[in-house]
């Protein structure tokens, strides 16, 4: 107690925040799968950032790549080469930059939009709900590709357009899920209590509804990351992305176009798929671990 009086309130607040961080970390660490997922994700991000230090532009050039064409894995090319003589390992490495950027940003954007719209429509009800939900239904039935094509016409080609195109088309499902969960949470007595406490709309939504819909949001996020990485490949394939950029999706697409499946060129088509699956898996593991940290009842069962 004596130390508490000496410390200034601001310092107290910082100490408390630091304690919260260390507590979350301590509880997160208890979940081994979560730690493995986190290591995978951090590793993938670091590798992606470091890629330009190890891969020269020439090695990724379609015309000047040094390797033999479509060679199976060897010492020099651990994952073989593609039809231009580029190392598949280098392609995956370089491709992680675009794939992870698009995967994270587009997922974040759509989950954010979906959560905000879902909670708002579930909380306010009445005409706000009607307007938001009709808008959601409208976006839900819009064909993603057509919308993306029109966005490219307006915004111009590039990775940013792809992120926006995925972000604005993938949120309605999240919004519907979050709204359904919000309605369930809002009917619980502790919401009535928090209103009786004198809490306003923002207080109820941020303090009581959000933590209770978080498990669904996290589950949706882990699923969306894989979906957006694949969506990026679809859009790149349609020529809506920057054709000079290498991504996991575009590598997969090129391999498929070259008939890698029927020719048995497994080293070309399998690695990008595994890379996508690994990132999605890592995300799922981290998501589950976070859910356990934030949901005290799940924590007990560990």
């Amino acid at each position, binding site marked *: 107690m004596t130390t508490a009086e000496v410390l200034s309130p601001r310092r107290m607040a910082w100490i408390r925040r630091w304690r919260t961080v260390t507590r979350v970390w301590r509880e997160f660490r208890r979940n081994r799968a979560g730690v493995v997922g986190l290591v995978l994700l951090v590793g993938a991000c670091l590798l992606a950032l470091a890629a330009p230090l190890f891969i020269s532009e020439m090695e990724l050039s379609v015309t000047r790549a040094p390797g033999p064409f479509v060679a199976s894995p060897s010492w020099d090319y651990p994952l073989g080469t593609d039809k231009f003589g580029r190392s598949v390992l280098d392609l995956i490495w370089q491709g992680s930059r675009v794939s992870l950027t698009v995967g994270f940003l587009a997922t974040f954007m759509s989950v954010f939009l979906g959560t905000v719209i879902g909670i708002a429509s579930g909380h306010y*009800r009445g005409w706000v709900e009607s307007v938001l939900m009709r808008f959601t239904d409208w976006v839900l039935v819009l064909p993603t590709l057509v919308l993306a094509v029109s966005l490219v016409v307006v915004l111009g080609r590039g990775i940013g357009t792809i992120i926006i195109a995925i972000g604005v088309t993938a949120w309605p499902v999240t919004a519907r899920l979050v709204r359904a969960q919000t309605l369930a949470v809002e009917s*619980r*007595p*502790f919401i*009535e*209590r928090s209103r*009786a406490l*004198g809490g306003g709309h923002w207080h109820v939504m941020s303090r009581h509804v959000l933590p209770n819909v978080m498990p669904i949001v996290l589950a949706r996020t882990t699923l969306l990351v894989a979906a957006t990485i694949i969506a990026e490949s679809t859009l790149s394939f349609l020529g809506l992305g920057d054709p000079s950029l290498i991504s996991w999706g575009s590598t997969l697409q090129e391999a498929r176009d070259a008939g890698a499946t029927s020719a048995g060129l497994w080293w070309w088509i399998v690695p990008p798929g595994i890379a996508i699956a690994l990132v999605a898996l890592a995300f799922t593991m981290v998501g589950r671990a976070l859910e356990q940290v*934030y949901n*005290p009842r799940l924590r007990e069962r560990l």
Partner: protein
Amino acid sequence: MSLLEIDDLTVTYRTAGGPVPAVRGLSLDLPAGQKLGVAGESGCGKSTVALALLRLLPTTATVSGRILFEGEDVLSMTWGRLRAVRWAGASIIFQGAMHSLNAVHRIGAQIAEPILLHESVTQAEADLRVTELLTQVGLPPDRARAYPHELSGGQRQRVMIAMALACNPRLIVADEPTTALDVMVQAQILRLIEELVRDHDISLMIISHDLAVLADTCDRLAVMYAGRVVEQGPARQVFEAASHPYSAALSGAFPRIGDPASRLQPRGLAGDPPDPAELPTGCSFHPRCPSALDICSHVDPELWPAGESEAACVLVLPDQGASLAEEAIR
């Protein structure tokens, strides 16, 4: 001046099957420092009254009448003023403490919630108050770090009481505070509420179906039936010498210790509470009333003085309601 004055309160729920009146012209009066008990069966509108006090009813409810809290009409308050009165003026101990606590927050944080909402205090000061409040309700202060599911039913109800005290309200409304608890814990919780209310000079309104519990705790009792007060008066008199047949049946429904007759022949009440959408004509209690007269299906009496209390029954009217009967026949 009364702390709380409810005047001709009417609450009607709009449903798919048409309007359903839950409260029909209810008037209550709670002077500062007093303890008022509101009794009645399930569905008689007693919880609706509790929620109406702080305007917490769903939007499907139409409310009319006046609810004066410290002279201010709650029903016509601005949103900002209403939020300030909620909890800082009057707080609620909800029924079912398990569900009224948010499972994902520590109980310390939940007790601090109203303090942080209503007062400009730092988190550290709020934590200090939480420690104080937990001690007052007889919980060790380190329980502040527990989650609701780690506490027993009685402990959770203590947390709810600590929360109700958090902002030093003038009125506490306890809505069935002991319903889900076993008898021993029930008694502890009631004693605790009584003590705290006395020490802090807070007025109390307890809502319950258990007339015996209310008679033991409260100064005055109001018995509700089908959205109306059918009898009110000093607690002892209403419980032991009820004037209205319904209050008599309600107090007779509990066996009395030391009275073998009541144990061998427990008096209950036949039938179910009336459907608020289709109330019987005349006195809404007459189909179940053991002492109903012919005129009861025609007249619906107002509250009338009966000794120290008031009852809404033709039996307490002068001349057994002869004049009303004449009027009904005419």
